[in-house]
């Protein structure tokens, strides 16, 4: 039930900026995900929120109270938060119950009932007297979660909690997280490199790359309206095709793609752009744009045809196999953004008009 506000938070390790002037707000009670490829700084950002790292610059506030800025720093134990570590970090010399009771004892709260309640919430009441090494990975995960829940924190931080679990366990733990989030009403901040996990569970997702924040949005908006090429490619196996934006009006852009004119949603200025596409936007269509099929794979009962469209790779779903060679692709949807780093004016724009 805590809101978090980060303003220009920066932290470097050995010259590289792990977190680079990140500003974001996590609304109270949200299920908030930090998503990005490994090494993008998402775990460092989580550790900054936890108070396990100190920012070099910037401000971190929780519920409007500054917890880190300049010389002022609130120790992690005083931030009223829980954390589930990637390794679970269960103390091996303590029983499950003692692990869960630890935080309560530190806060001088009578532990017995709260431990029972937290273990019941994760469905592990029968294992209270076991040691961590006697538990399976999924059970350890639940103990780690119960340990965080027992102190009823304002905020729970989860650092890649599913990374060490089997694929089928992940799905059931995700459902568990969602249920417990609803039940407890606590703010959850969830770090993951797996966009499926983040998209499936979150109210809001922040996509990071190379220490910088790329976009903070709802999963639907990230999928439909990526703010950068990185986000477009990272989310939902998206593809980006180079296009020339001729003009835009009322949320639609006129484009030139491989010499063909078409219209797609977006709000990019005239000049070089990216057309961001997902498989759902594409189909084999004799009236479409010419492309070159290079191969295919079988997935979810469909053939996914690999093709080169304007020298960019795209995947097109098809019911029937397609022979390599020339094909035509119909485009319905997509999202147009400006192409960073390219010259603002492109010759072909003038020649097309």
């Amino acid at each position, binding site marked *: 039930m805590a809101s978090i506000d980060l303003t220009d938070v920066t932290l470097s390790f050995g010259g590289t900026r792990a977190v680079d002037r990140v500003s974001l707000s996590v609304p109270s009670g949200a299920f908030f995900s930090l998503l990005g490829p490994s090494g993008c700084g998402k775990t460092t950002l989580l550790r900054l929120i936890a108070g396990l790292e100190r920012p070099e610059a910037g401000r971190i506030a929780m519920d409007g109270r500054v917890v880190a800025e300049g010389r002022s720093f609130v120790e992690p134990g*005083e931030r009223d938060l829980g954390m589930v570590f*990637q390794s679970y970090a269960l103390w091996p010399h303590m029983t499950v119950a003692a692990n869960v009771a630890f935080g309560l004892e530190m806060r001088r709260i009578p532990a017995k009932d709260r431990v029972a309640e937290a273990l019941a919430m994760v469905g592990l009441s029968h294992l209270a007297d076991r040691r961590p090494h006697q538990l399976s990975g999924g059970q350890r995960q639940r103990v780690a979660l119960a*340990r965080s829940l027992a102190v009823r924190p304002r905020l729970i931080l989860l650092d890649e909690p599913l990374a060490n679990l089997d694929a089928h366990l992940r799905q059931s733990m995700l459902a568990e997280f969602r249920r417990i989030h609803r039940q407890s009403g606590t703010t959850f901040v969830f770090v993951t490199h797996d966009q499926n996990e983040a998209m499936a569970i979150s109210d809001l997702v922040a996509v990071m790359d190379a220490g910088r924040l790329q976009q903070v949005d709802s999963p639907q908006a990230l999928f439909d309206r990526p703010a950068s090429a990185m986000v477009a490619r990272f989310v939902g196996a998206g593809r980006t095709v180079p296009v020339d934006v001729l003009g835009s009006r009322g949320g639609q852009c006129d484009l030139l793609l491989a010499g063909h004119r078409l219209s797609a949603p977006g709000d990019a200025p005239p000049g070089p752009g990216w057309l961001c596409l997902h498989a759902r936007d594409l189909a084999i269509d004799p009236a479409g744009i010419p492309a070159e099929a290079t191969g295919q794979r079988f997935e979810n009962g469909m053939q996914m045809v690999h093709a080169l469209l304007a020298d960019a790779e795209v995947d097109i779903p098809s019911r029937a196999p397609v022979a390599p060679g020339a094909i035509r692709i119909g485009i319905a949807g997509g999202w147009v953004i400006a192409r960073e780093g390219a010259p603002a004016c492109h010759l072909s724009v003038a020649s097309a008009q």
Partner: protein
Amino acid sequence: MVIAEAWDSRATWRALENTLAASAGSVVISVVLGTGLALALGAFRMRGRVAMTFLALSPLLIPSQIMALAWIELAGALVPGPNPIYSGTGIALLMGVEHMPLVFIAVRAALKAIPADLIEAARIGGASQGAILRRVILPLCLPACGAGAALAFAAAVGNFGVPALLGIPGRFPMLTTLIYQRLNGFGPSILGQVAVLALLLVALAGAALALRALTLRLAVPVPQGRPFERPRASGMATAAVWTSLILLMVTPMLALMGTALSPALGVKLGLDTASLQNFAQVLDSATIRRAFVNSLLLSVAAAVISTVIALPFAWLSQVARNRAMRHLDWLADAPFVVPGTVLALAAIMTFLPPLPVLGISVYGTPAILLIAYLARFLPLALRPLSAAAASTEPALDEAARIFGAPIRARIARIFAPPVAAPALAGAVLIFMTAFNELTLSALLWSSGNETLGVMIFSLQYEGNSTGAAALSVLSLLLVAGLALALDSACRGREGILPWRD
């Protein structure tokens, strides 16, 4: 018959009682000192940590007879009247200090293995630094502490140098000194009776090591992870550690130096009276010079041969995963279970009769000393090598096998280069330990084959304590010089020398 005789003897019972009491006392001291120092140096950041660690480990480099001499001089200088160190308490104190590094090393290794997130989880739970130490760090070190204590007990039971120098004049017989005195007094004819005492020693040490194995098996497995970040120690704590290290490790050596420099026993030492005549006298003796050379040759041979044996041995047991060799690996640890006195006895019993085929006896020759040294010190070469070998990637050797490399090439070109540094460090450690060896030498030396340890012991025994001190200082300087040379060679490379971790 023989067993019943020895069993009935009151002297045996007294020695057993004394051994148990002094060893138990020494373990308490070892555990308190070793755990305290390991926590101070391993859980906090302190200025001068390498120097402190070196001092904490220095009892490993200082042979027990020299340590005993130094403390005799220190206690004699501090306390007027009869020297209180010649007692069971004195023996317990000294053995406690001497075996402290065994606990220190075990606890330090356990501390280093605690993953950071266990500490961070406690911080998030709101634990203070004190609570983290009490509730997380200490309990996780407890099994290592128990294992180190068991090792310290086994070492104390088998210790000869300290009880020989303190217990014999102090009339506090222990099992090791009783064996020595019986053999010295009656000669090999009493071997049978003495063997019973030796069995008692083995049983005690064996029990301690079984306890150690049990402790390690019952300990919960600690997950792996990056090591935790250590908070800076307060100035007070740093000062306290320095003070205790200097009091326990440096002042006795200064007292020893003082005696070595004093012109005559009982003359007050001052800048004007200090003289080097004790050193001159010691070096003037042909016997002592011969002992120097003997010890030098023996220890170099022990170091070189041990390493040469250990290299293929470690390869076979760790890389080639040879089953028979893995059992032998365990067997090579036997000298830790078998106290030196017992090993010496076994050597006498085995090699007193003439060797088959050759028809000559190695008893009374330097060969018996070398054989015993090898049996004693092989583990010192094998341990670091097996550890290094166990951590090498087996695929490296398999890749060489794919190319059809013969075993010789696989050992020499794939296995040896990365483990060369720990092997060299092990060899130098063997040299330093063997150079001042006393326990084996005391029973196996013969006229013309004296060793340095025996020389120091007999000088003190004859009452020439200034001479003994001078010779001790000389041999310590040699060992310290070697340690410093090794240290500068290993600077920047961690994990090879025990004090640079």
